[in-house]
């Protein structure tokens, strides 16, 4: 979500709990948040506000789903995870647990994926302790304009640890 934009952030939910003292609003039940074409759906969304406005958004779902529309030169970003966190200070979205991001036909899968929504840079990490997640990062990157490579066998990279793509 773009805090510089003059487009409002709209939230719809079944119910809500507003803690006026802490500046926290918790929306539960079929929650949908939109700003222009950017869209987030989840079972529960916690919205933190400070003097300057919305500072942090935490969404949880089975999975929570985040979509950012295509812009010039960049395709749509479609991402899912059990937990999606957006921070205004870092202008970054973090996908945790069963995180999957699809962008321009490329696919990133990992336990933790950071997505810089301004620069559109994806950083994926495997889980530190391999107990819960697979501990591995998987990326499927579509070749650019190379006819020899059959689409059925795109470049596929499996790494353990972190990797970065633009």
């Amino acid at each position: 979500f773009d805090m510089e934009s003059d487009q409002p952030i709209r939230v719809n939910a079944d119910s809500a709990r507003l803690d006026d003292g802490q500046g926290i609003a918790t929306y539960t039940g079929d929650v949908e948040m939109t700003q222009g074409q950017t869209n987030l759906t989840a079972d529960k969304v916690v919205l933190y506000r400070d003097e300057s406005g919305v500072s942090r958004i935490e969404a949880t779902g089975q999975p929570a789903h985040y979509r950012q529309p295509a812009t010039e030169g960049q395709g749509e970003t479609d991402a899912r995870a059990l937990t999606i966190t957006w921070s205004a200070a870092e202008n970054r979205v973090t996908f945790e647990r069963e995180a999957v991001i699809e962008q321009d036909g490329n696919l990133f899968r990992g336990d933790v994926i950071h997505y810089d929504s301004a620069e559109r840079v994806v950083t994926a990490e495997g889980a530190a302790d391999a107990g819960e997640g697979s501990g591995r990062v998987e990326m499927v990157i579509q070749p650019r304009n190379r006819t020899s490579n059959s689409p059925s066998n795109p470049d596929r990279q499996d790494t353990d640890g972190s990797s970065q793509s633009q």
Partner: protein
Amino acid sequence: MSAQPLFNRPWVRTLGLAGTIVALFFLLWQSDEPTVPTDAASLRGESEPDGFVVNGLYLSYDETGRLTTRFRSPRIEQFESRSETVMKSPRATLFGEGGNPPWQVQATEGRFLEAEDLVHLTGDVKVIREAEGGRPLTLTTTALTMNNRDRTVYTDEPVALTDAVSLTTATGMKAWIDDRILELDSQVEGRYEPGK
């Protein structure tokens, strides 16, 4: 000169007689009218309350003597049989604990049920509250109930909440005055203006 010669003149006696007849007629006409003064009856009003206060002020304290609620109304009527007090255009201030900013409450009409310590507000209900950072939070609805005992405010009606950066609407709500927490029951729609 004594008054005796004056009474011997015929026109004086006729005049006196006429005056007496008029006075008698006036007294007869007055006697079957009720003697209740008309301005008191109109002041009391058609609903004939047991007691009423014009431009009154109603204060409520907790057990430690701390002022918790202050109601002001141009007309307060009290009905003993129903233990009920009806207030026209009430303007209330609810004092939060621990120095929390107060809530200002206003409506077209308010009914205070003494037995349950409840206040029912109806008609253009507006609740204004200084929220965190001093941005006023305004809640509007058509009916609202305030429970003085557990310090809650609730309604089943549609509500709208506005402050400097957001507008939230919902149907049904409950708020805990001292904890500054508010729950919206259903059909919640929020709109935030980023960085406004």
